[in-house]
């Protein structure tokens, strides 16, 4: 069953098209890794898929209420403790428990620490633990492994694998090797949008002024 399907998608950043004619599918139990140089439009693509910005063309089909999005920043409140942060997101997604998430991201010992006293890597682990408490099947992750050490990357890869084994799906934009051999890799470079002079599409004109 296809969890996420993208057809002829074109996305724009700041009114300029960055990617076009992009089509792919992610099935249940699959992970797709997006690759490409800086500025190719990985973040823009993920934000479009998450519904934060409109697509320029094409369509995205995803079952409603099934996506969990994790951006560059973790959305943590520094004056709340680790478990308060997680409990908040668990309540937002109406899931009951945060214990498995604390366990699998190795945060148990930090549960009562304020988020401001965590290191960058620990914050990132907390941000990823947030995904586990959403209970959503499709993970859309933007650079999930920034500031993680090798042990934590392995921990994260294990969490993704566990998620896939339960019938979930994951779409990741990343530069480093996660050790997820089973993941398919999609290079975005061939989908780079052509300039309008070369016959590419024009961006939404008024958007450049917003």
């Amino acid at each position: 069953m296809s969890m996420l399907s993208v057809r002829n998608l074109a996305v724009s950043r700041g009114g300029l098209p960055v990617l076009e004619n992009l089509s792919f599918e992610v099935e249940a139990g699959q992970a797709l890794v997006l690759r490409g140089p800086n500025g190719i439009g990985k973040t823009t693509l993920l934000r479009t898929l998450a519904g934060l910005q409109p697509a320029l063309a094409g369509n995205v089909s995803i079952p409603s209420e099934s996506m969990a999005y994790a951006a560059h920043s973790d959305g943590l409140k520094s004056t709340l403790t680790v478990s308060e942060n997680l409990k908040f997101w668990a309540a937002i997604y109406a899931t009951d428990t945060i214990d498995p998430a604390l366990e699998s991201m190795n945060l148990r010992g930090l549960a009562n620490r304020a988020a401001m006293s965590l290191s960058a890597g620990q914050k990132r682990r907390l941000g990823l633990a947030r995904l586990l408490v959403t209970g959503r099947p499709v993970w859309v992750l933007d650079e999930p492994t920034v500031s993680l050490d090798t042990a934590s990357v392995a921990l994260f890869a294990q969490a993704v694998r566990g998620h896939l084994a339960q019938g979930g799906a994951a779409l990741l934009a990343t530069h480093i090797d996660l050790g997820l051999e089973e993941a398919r890799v999609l290079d975005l470079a061939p989908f780079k949008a052509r300039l309008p002079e070369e016959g590419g599409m024009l961006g939404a004109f008024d958007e450049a002024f917003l």
Partner: protein
Amino acid sequence: MSPEGILSMIALLIRDLRLAVRAGGGFGLGLAFFLIVVTLVPFGVGPQGDILARIAPGILWLGALLACLLSLDRIFALDFEDGSLDLLATAPIPLEGVVAMKAFAHWLTTGLPLVIAAPIFGILLHLPAAAQSWLVISLLLGTPALSVLGTFGAALTVGLKRGGLLLSLLVLPFYVPTLIFGAELIRRGAQGMATDVALLMLAGITAATVALIPFASAAAIRVNLR
């Protein structure tokens, strides 16, 4: 809305209240500012009780407006900076609900303390005893509109650096009707005149803003998140 949705909204409210009372949350800031404004007025105007009593309704409402303005830019800016606004926008609760809860949290931490403390400030300004209850009623009915209208300004300026000043310029004109009818209600109450028109207009403005503004604010946030 489903029961889970309501529980999620309550969780958001509790989080915002908790953040407000933790370090750097700014709880009590508005109240302290209100106190300073109100105590400075007699120094500027002079100690004549009759003049103070006459200008008290206007001063008290202006103080409330400015105290409310003080914490408006934090409503969405902090969530925008740490990325939680993106995550809330993709979460299962509607953005309109997020706005409504944030406005409610802002009112609970800024407007409500003013309503409770207002009689003391009224005494400082020689407000007649008959007007004290009208002061509380007027602030209770009017301040929710200040918080809700404030979310619209905060939503429009959410991505801007130093958006606070622009926010004040955008929001203060919208506060005019509330200011007029709020102060008028106290004035009429103090003089023993009929209060129904001012009371109904004040309540009507608040009801309309609470019903409509969350949609406008949510639309502004969606545009700003693009």
